[in-house]
């Protein structure tokens, strides 16, 4: 049976060659967009859709360990794509990471870090320190520098040296510190956090401070909102303390004032 192979014939042979001379067919090509910058013309469109670190996360060290808190809103430009994103990632039972920037980037690399931490434990028969874990992540991110990863994360944990907190970002930067806030709502969160911070607070006081700081950030920053999650990392590992909707928190902090009524409407007497 003779197969129909007309579809396989090069159509270039039938069209007068654009570029080649009459003898040889032109090389196969595709249409390029007709503008000046065809490598970067889509950049604006992509940037709008990127998460661009629209979030508020914070973490601080105090007497009883580390408090980690975050909101749960994901936005694509002006569109709120989700109000229930888990921005605190559980790397392992005694280490937490926060998510700011690209959600996929953060989730993947935190999970990858969890794998590396576990392998370190198995090979060396001891847990990896928060210092070591944050350095592993920072080195990976540095090697992808300039390739478009967007990650602004804090690694918080409790190891042999006590509580540890590091800020790591996709530029390859890594900072050790006691108080950090990352994201578009961080200026607002810093205001409340820096004002109310004391080293010797109880766990409840520290959690309430973190909750208030995130709430105030969600109040003013459009890209933050949803639910405030608060975690505590102690010597036995992390524990989730609370998850409160910021709408409800608003009315808890600023309950509706009953204004005095000048004239009250009364029922008209039945005629």
């Amino acid at each position, binding site marked *: 049976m003779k197969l129909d192979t007309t579809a396989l014939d090069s159509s270039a042979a039938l069209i007068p060659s654009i570029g080649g001379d009459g003898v040889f067919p032109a090389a196969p090509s595709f249409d390029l967009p007709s503008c000046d910058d065809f490598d970067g013309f889509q950049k604006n469109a992509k940037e709008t859709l990127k998460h661009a670190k629209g979030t508020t996360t914070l973490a601080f060290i105090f007497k009883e360990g580390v408090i980690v808190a975050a909101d749960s809103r994901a936005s694509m430009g002006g569109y709120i794509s989700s109000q229930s994103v888990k921005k605190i990632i559980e790397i392992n039972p005694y280490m937490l990471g926060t998510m700011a920037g690209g959600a996929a980037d953060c989730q993947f690399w935190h999970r990858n870090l969890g794998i590396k931490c576990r392998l370190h434990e198995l*090979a*060396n028969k001891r847990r990896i*320190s928060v*210092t070591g874990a944050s*350095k*592993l992540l920072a080195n990976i991110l540095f090697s992808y520098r300039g390739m478009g990863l967007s990650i602004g994360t804090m690694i918080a944990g409790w190891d042999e040296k006590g509580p540890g907190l590091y800020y790591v970002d996709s530029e390859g930067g890594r900072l050790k510190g006691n108080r950090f806030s990352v994201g578009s709502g961080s200026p607002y969160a810093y205001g409340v956090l820096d004002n109310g911070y004391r080293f010797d607070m109880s766990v409840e006081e520290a959690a309430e401070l973190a909750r208030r700081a995130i709430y105030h950030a969600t109040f003013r920053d459009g890209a933050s909102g949803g639910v405030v999650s608060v975690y505590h990392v102690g010597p036995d590992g992390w524990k989730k303390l609370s998850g409160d909707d910021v709408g409800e928190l608003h009315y808890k902090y600023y309950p509706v004032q009953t204004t005095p009524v000048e004239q009250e409407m009364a029922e008209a007497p039945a005629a």
Partner: protein
Amino acid sequence: MARYDRAITVFSPDGHLFQVEYALEAVRKGNAAVGVRGSDTIVLGVEKKSTPKLQDSRTVRKIVSLDTHIALACAGLKADARVLINRARIECQSHRLTVEDPASVEYITRYIAGLQQKYTQSGGVRPFGLSTLIVGFDPYTAVPALYQTDPSGTFSAWKANATGRNSNSMREFLEKNYKETSGRDTIKLAIRALLEVVESGGKNIEIAVMTRDEGLKQLEEAEIDEFVAEIEAEKAAAEAAKKAPPRET
């Protein structure tokens, strides 16, 4: 049999890797080395063959430090040792860079052993012809450790061990006379083991002592002679006590 011992990557029918076993032979021809682990001190001792008059003996260091808290002594091909030691030193610093903590003795031993094993499973290379004794204090727990690796790439921890020439006699001595020691007693035990197979005197022995606070210290010839004299005196006293029967009252 000749057909199975050329290439490292060929097993013999009865399961031997002849090149690795020949490497172990090279180790057995190398100078004697001993390591003893005490509760707060670890001692490495190496036989020093007579130095030619014109040679600067300070350049022939047989006990080297890999990091401030880890030291190594080896027996076998010294040129191979240099290469392995350089790689281990780099790995110690690389570990400090990537996890911001000093490497543990076990980690670096695992690295060296892994390196030795790699060269038993590659084409066109031969195994490293040396066994190493690696000592140090764990940076986290301050527990002293002594490890040994060999050309096959196996490693294990020891309370005391010997390698190189006459290592069997030294090991037998250590097995008979080992007990938990500290400080000067650990040094004496190591020297006594070496003296079993080496001519007496500070000229023929090189001793290095590692403590947690002071790191690695090479003993001077005079200090070694002091220990040797002490040991000889103890030996003589023991002999005398054996010969003279106790007086009965």
